[in-house]
């Protein structure tokens, strides 16, 4: 026996069969919206596999396939992987041989610098958050606010002192310097986020463990930390997204060997002195999207838990 299902129910805005569960109808509606939202990104990805000459064609070419005749031929292009090859090696001077662009190194740098700095911030920040949460200092809120303040100023203000400092101590152009700097910039976020997680934990279990004679170190590692894994994962993803695309510090504080992709990407924005090399830029951006996309995807389940900051708690 089938019952009439209203349209609204079908797309999950009103449901009899399980309030929090919606069916494929909802999937269809959200898929349409998500697809439209994703279109500008999709266009970049498609540009990455476009032949260079078609990047600025009018009418614009939109898709590598006609999707069974859905898209008229004039909007369809033949996909190519050449652009991805040019990211790493291409002709730099007229009539010259293809030479390495150094992008393999830049990708490596980006991954090392972003992950190391986010992890460092996570370690230091989690400890601090635990301290702020469990052993409040005099003026605890002031410390927290000052920490937040460090994220409010435009980066350009601190850049000159930072360059001077780095120069004085020989950190300019080194991995260590930029990693420390990024770690500092991620700290504010990490401390605030992790503190809210520790605040949410019940202290009963910890106290019980203390009474059983566990050391403070053991309480932290064995009792608290396992309960905030979701928070750690979410903080990592957010930190990664914020650090991954940082431009200004990377431009000014990295050398040719430690340069990151966002800086080198401008090679394609002004390619060889002419304007933007659209397909090359798209290829770089597409490749550059992959690591952070994967990280987000695999840690996605923790994201929603991660962002509540304890504000939901009553």
């Amino acid at each position, binding site marked *: 026996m089938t019952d009439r299902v209203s349209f609204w129910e079908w797309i999950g805005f009103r449901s009899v069969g399980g309030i929090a569960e919606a069916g494929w109808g909802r999937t269809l509606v959200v898929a349409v919206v998500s697809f439209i939202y994703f279109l500008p990104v999709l266009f970049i990805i498609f540009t990455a596999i476009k032949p260079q000459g078609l990047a600025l064609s009018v009418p614009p070419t939109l898709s590598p396939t006609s999707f069974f005749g859905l898209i008229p031929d004039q909007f369809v292009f033949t996909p190519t992987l050449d652009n991805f090859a040019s990211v790493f090696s291409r002709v730099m001077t007229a009539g010259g041989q293809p030479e390495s662009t150094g992008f393999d190194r830049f990708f490596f740098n980006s991954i090392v610098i972003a992950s190391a700095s986010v992890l460092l911030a996570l370690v230091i920040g989690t400890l601090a958050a635990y301290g702020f949460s469990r052993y409040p200092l005099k003026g605890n809120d002031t410390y927290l606010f000052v920490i937040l303040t460090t994220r409010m100023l435009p980066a350009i203000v601190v850049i000159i002192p930072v360059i001077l400092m780095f120069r004085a101590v020989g950190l300019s152009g*080194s991995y*260590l310097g930029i990693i420390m700097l990024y770690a500092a910039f991620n700290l504010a976020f990490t401390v605030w986020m992790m503190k809210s997680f520790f605040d949410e934990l019940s202290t009963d279990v910890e106290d019980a463990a203390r009474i059983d004679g566990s050391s403070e170190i053991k309480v932290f590692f064995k009792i608290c930390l396992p309960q905030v894994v979701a928070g750690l994962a979410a903080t990592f993803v957010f930190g990664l997204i914020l650090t991954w695309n940082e431009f200004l510090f990377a431009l*000014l504080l990295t050398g040719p060997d430690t340069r990151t992709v966002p800086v080198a990407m401008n090679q394609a924005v002004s390619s060889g002195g*002419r304007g933007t090399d659209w397909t090359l830029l798209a290829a770089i951006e597409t490749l550059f999207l992959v690591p952070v996309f994967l990280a987000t995807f695999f840690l996605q389940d923790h994201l929603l838990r991660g962002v509540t900051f304890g504000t939901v708690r009553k």
Partner: protein
Amino acid sequence: MTATREINSIVMAAGLAASLVLGTTFAFAGDVTLTMAVPDWPPTRIMKKFFDEQYKPKSGNTVKLQVDFIPWPDFYTRVNASLTSGEKKYNFIVSDSQWLGAFVEGGYFRKINDLLNADPEFMKTFKDIHPNALNSYSTYPHKSENYYGFPQFPDVLVNFARKDIICHEAEQKNFMAKFNQKLPCTSEELDAMTWDDFKNVGEFFRRKKGEMLAGKPAEDDFYGIAFQAGKSYDFSSMQINGFIWQMGGDIWDETQAPTSKAEGVVNSPAAVKALEKYLSLIAYMPPLAKTGTMDIFKSDELFRQGKVAMSVNWIGLAEASLDPKTSRVSDNLVFGMMPGTKGADGKLVRWSNIGGQPFVLTTWTTDAQIKEAVEFVKWWLSSNIQHQFAAAGGQSAIKSVYSDPKYVTYRPWNRAWAPSLDWQKDVWHVPQFFELLTQQQDQYDLAITGRQDAKTTQDNIAKFQQRLLKEVGLIQ
């Protein structure tokens, strides 16, 4: 653990970390590394390539040229931060000619008179540079005897045009019918163009999609002309200065400071008329011009994509239009000098703002490095290398090189090079360059996007310059 042992281990660990971070900077005597900050584009890539392949230092030392290729959009930011923070990282820096004052006054760029005086051969090569280029690229104060830079990639504005459009019979006929004048088609005819002719071309070739263009229906909207009219950096001033000079006006003259004035000069009727003329051409450009973002790259892109018939742009961007991979019009190009203005004597006045970049030495470069640096520069400016450079798409400002008959065969635009050089002037070199430039660009943007008339624009610029330069003592 006792405190002493702690100290020992910590010091050792720190030492280890230090050596890891700083890297081994020990070098053998006789090894010289010259570090160079350059924008990432073919002329600098070629320089590096030639060095690696061909350079044999006379001293017998091992000389390495370590080049930091920085993408163009961030080049100034990076170099400026490196210099002003005292990073002392680079021995050579490619610099726009206008930056000279700012960085000479700051004590970053090294005066090279002593090096020239010590080496007659060097001096001879140096003096073979075209005087206009030499003044622009090397002198501070402008046109003084204090020398700083050597041409890396000298550049001028030229006229790019599409033969398939402008030489088409039907278009030629119709143009004649409309303007009672021949539509320029050959290089020589392009050379002879005035801005009025340029405007006619703009007006004539405005076609809507589907209208006939060179015997075929146009695939897309088509426009006659393109040139720089963008807000960022100097992407309108470089063009407008040419108009002002050609029509008898002037910009604030730094060589006469502190007696020269900005008010009354910058907003003179001639300058206002020149800006009006420039603005009157904007209407014939592709629609992007109305947004104030028609920079040199966008106008070049529109030309390469076949959306305009003629475009005034730097030679430095021309290489891409010849390459079929990046240009839809590569088969049908013809180049001429930038249009001029008829002077009182009936001859064309062709003043234009010089482009391109010199490279300079920095003050912290050591004597050992300087010795090798001078040898390197001499090698770079030597006839053989300059010819090779030009053959690979570069330009040379050395008289003996560009006046060689071979020179015009390297690239189609090279025939315009030598005559253009005689008509080059340069914008200010004073340390306040960027302040003057940003304010002027902002004002020009207002005029270009139709928010402000030419008179108000030049008045505002003059007023600002007068005040600023007075404040710093450059105007009495």
